[in-house]
């Protein structure tokens, strides 16, 4: 079966088996290396991608359901200005997610910041409730989210 979708802003077309997992397609056909697979149950978040504006576990999505979708992975998101707010917040708080959960963590933070201008702790904890990687303290992640939100707020107000 041939499917096509927008991958990081570019049209992408590939030949796949209809029920093949999106995570496998992105890794093998799309050469996307930020997507990792581990649990295959949608629990670990290491395979997270953004599809049509929503963060979803790509291991739970079969090929036939992504035709015509707009898919953004960490590779695509890292070229945006929003990404740099999050990285700057990581640097200042000392949070450093490992390579395995980095993609999922950053995309989850982005989804929080899109929903809440000033996210509060319960909202952050809820969003991270499926993130099982123990590499980074959730306290540091929470500080990073709040700091990144502050940077965005300053940008909106036109301050440095």
């Amino acid at each position, binding site marked *: *079966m041939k499917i096509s979708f927008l991958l990081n802003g570019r049209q992408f077309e590939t030949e796949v*088996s*209809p*029920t*093949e*997992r999106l995570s*496998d397609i992105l890794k093998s056909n799309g050469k996307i290396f930020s997507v990792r*697979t581990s649990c*295959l*149950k*949608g*629990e670990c*978040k290491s395979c*997270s991608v953004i599809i049509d504006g*929503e*963060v*979803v*576990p790509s*291991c*739970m*999505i*079969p090929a*036939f*359901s992504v*035709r015509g979708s707009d898919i953004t992975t960490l590779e695509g998101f890292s070229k945006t200005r929003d990404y740099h707010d999050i990285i700057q917040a990581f640097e200042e708080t000392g949070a450093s997610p490992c390579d395995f959960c980095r993609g999922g963590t950053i995309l*989850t933070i982005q989804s929080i910041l899109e929903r809440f201008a000033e996210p509060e702790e319960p909202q952050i904890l*809820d*969003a991270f*409730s*499926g*993130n099982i990687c123990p590499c980074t303290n959730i306290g540091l992640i929470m500080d990073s989210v709040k700091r990144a939100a502050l940077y965005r707020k300053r940008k909106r107000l036109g301050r440095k």
Partner: protein
Amino acid sequence: MEGNNLGRNIYAPQSLNELLHMREQHPDTILWSGGTALMRMQKGPVPSFDRDIIHLSGVNELKKIRRTERYLEIGAAVPVKKIINVGQHILPFALAQALMSIGSPAVRNLATMGGNLGIKDRRLNSFSVLMLMDSIVELRRSGKSRWIQLGRLNSIGEAEILTRIRIPFRNWDLQYFRAVGDPLLHPMDSLSFTVLAETNKGIISNLRFAVGNTGKSTLRSLDFETYLSGKKLRLSGKEFDAAVNIFQSFVQNAEGDLTPFQKDRSLRFVHWFLRELRDVYIFTE
């Protein structure tokens, strides 16, 4: 038709009429909405399915939420996240809790209420809450439609499709929901506990109680419900003990899929709930 996997066809209807027609022609198909439960139940790294698939993403009629003065109506293919976002003033608290207990936030972006209710032989998180709320569901087939009580969902016919869930608004003053474990992957351990009740001047009325997530059955103890209905809040120590005893004898003799571990867990839930009524609950006019 989109393609095939090991000889399996994948259909993608673009309207409800087209879907009903396809289902009539191919009654033995898998209905794919969010697909989270179906993917979670896959054993290996490469998913494979033993039947043809009907993909529902193009059927916009199933993705609508409607609210009237009397009820909230949810399309079977509305993502759980969207239902939660309807808002705390509209969505009953216990139902919101039940929906929040489904998977991780990323999974809730995909999972749908129709999928949560429609898995054969399993009763998942939202079932017992919706059942206690007297929710009804619409079952449709080509040229026919009927509404049934959610508790009778087992009677769903071949070629019928669950299209809408209607939740009546009632003023539930007491709403408790707790769930532990994963009913999909660990049905022998998981359990949910739901209580809904109305109060009038500090007196409990119309108490409803269910233990769910226990395979294909949902347990209700009418003795327990009857005993607590009419009691004044807060509960006395004597009433607390009596209610525990009633539930204990009920759960020990309960028939169905309940394991000893689940029985113990349900007893702990009941202790917690009754402690809330005895020690914590403060009635305010």
